[in-house]
């Protein structure tokens, strides 16, 4: 059985490319373009891991994480931030809010897959 991954990203090119990379590695991928749609999708699919951008319209990544962590049904879902900011304070904030890990953009396919493999082991 392949792992279910929810990808939440407002940049359509990154969303599309990351989906392709994950699907090539046999992950089952669900996508959303903002935090609000991401939350709906998460509640519906109960993914094993959520890969989420921080800066997004409607609902940003921090708010999505806050909601995910409140939901009992998503208690086993891993949460990984995508961030275009390498600033420590942004990363720290995400980790303090309960993220399992983070990936700084730009990232290579290998980097992304390695990280997911470790988290889903």
């Amino acid at each position, binding site marked *: 059985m392949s792992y279910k991954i929810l990808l939440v990203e407002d940049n359509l090119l990154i969303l599309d490319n990351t989906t392709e990379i994950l699907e090539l590695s046999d992950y089952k991928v669900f996508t959303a373009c903002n935090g609000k749609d991401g939350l709906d999708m998460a509640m519906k699919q109960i993914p094993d891991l959520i890969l989420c951008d921080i800066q997004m319209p409607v609902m940003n990544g921090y708010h999505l994480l806050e909601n995910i962590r409140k939901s009992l049904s998503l208690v086993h879902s891993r949460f990984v931030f995508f961030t275009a*900011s390498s600033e420590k304070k942004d990363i720290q904030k995400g980790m303090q809010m309960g993220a399992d890990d983070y990936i700084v953009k*730009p990232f290579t*396919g290998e980097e992304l897959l390695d990280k997911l493999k470790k988290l889903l082991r």
Partner: protein
Amino acid sequence: MKDHTEALRKLRISNHQLDQLEEMQAYQKAILDNAGAMIIATDEKGLITFFNHEASLNTGYDEMEVINKKTPLLFHDKKEIAKIRYELLNELEILIEDDFAVLVEKARRSKHEEEEFTYIRKDKTSFPVSLNITAVKNNSRKIIGFMSVAFDITERRKAEDELRNVQQLFLQLLKNYPDGSISIIDNKLRFVYTGGQLQTRLNIDQKELIGADIYPNIEEPLRNIIIKKLGNVFLTRNTISNFELPHPVAGDTYMMDAFPLLEEDGSVNKIGVIIRNISGLKKTEEGLRDALEKEKELGELKSRFVSMASHEFRTPLSTILSSAYLIEKYTTSEDQPKREKHLQRIISSVSMLTDILNDFLSLGKIEEGKIEVKLSEFNVKEMVSDTIKEMEHSLKKDQTINYSHEGSPEVFLDVSLLKFILMNLVSNAVKFSSEGASINIKTIHKDQHILLSVKDQGIGISKQDQAHLMERFFRGANATNIQGTGLGLHIVDKYAELMNGSVECKSELEEGTEFIITFDSKDS
């Protein structure tokens, strides 16, 4: 025989007395010669009867030359005698003809006043003396001569002159103290002395202030504040340092220092006060503060630039890296369309990076004033239509652009700056509108005016944010989660300004935004 013996005895005694007298005279002469003063005695008519060694030394006349031959008028200045004669005439209403009588008139009246005269030496050089003349009287109180005692006061005069010079210099110093005042004030708060250019600026005669209440022409309430402060110096004996006067004087800012002047017994009856103009200093200080503020602003700008640039570059770089990874994975010939799609993504991401870079470069050029405006005549309708075509690929799903033009299409503007403005406004409209939204572009050329309007149905801009829209790196509160450098509208505004244009923004939150740019065309 007895008589003879008696006569001989008397003669012996007399000779003995004579010896004693001579001896006494020798002693007296020695004393008078070494008295350190010029001692000259005359008979009642003025003929010199005694002339001591000091007098001889100072005047250059030998004792033998003057005794019983000359009067002291020999070394007196005739002008000074004439002056005394005039004084005596005024005082006593008597005219004394004889010069020597003039000289000794006061002594004759038993007035022993020390007066200053000029003695003229034998070699015609002169020197000042302090002279005291006493009338010498016999047992029956009849004047039988005069005795004068004179001291050479050349050195004293010199010291007095020097002191006078120093005082003069000191007064000059006070008077010329630039743009301020130096004063000495007594414990009744009156000027003992005051000077300085501040008084001149306030049109006061410095002399009139001496003895007057302090600072009469400094207006209330400042004068009262100064009076209280200075009163405290007398009470507490504390020094006031660098007290900035809370109100301006003659339009300038002044600073006051005050300090007690301690008397030898430790009492304080006077204080020194220095008031100086610090307007120039203040101006320099303000300049420095401004420069520092600017430096700080520049530092903040730099750090915002670095953090924003880092963020904005990472997004297209992510696409490039992931597309490159996927191209590597798609190896079969059936995968060719996928490879092409990703190559296209790489190309468009690179062009996005180029756009961001160009924005930065434009900002740099604007800041340095290096943007050159190249005005030319062109067809605005064609330019806008072509640009819309170029931008069609970046529209969101089902978004449409409508364009209309009114008036002559020929305009006289900088075509590349106008194209940048248009592309920027359209890409903002695309970015901030949802899928399926329409964007309306309008150009109007009427009379001397050209108008460009770009209207969307996007998220809108709050009234509060509209005020800061054209500032560098500014992002609207509802746009922080949407990508952007915060430079586009700043550049649009600057480019419009360079072409004598103005930017207007009409917007309502959640309803949409319209940017209207109006140019005053010089026309072809």
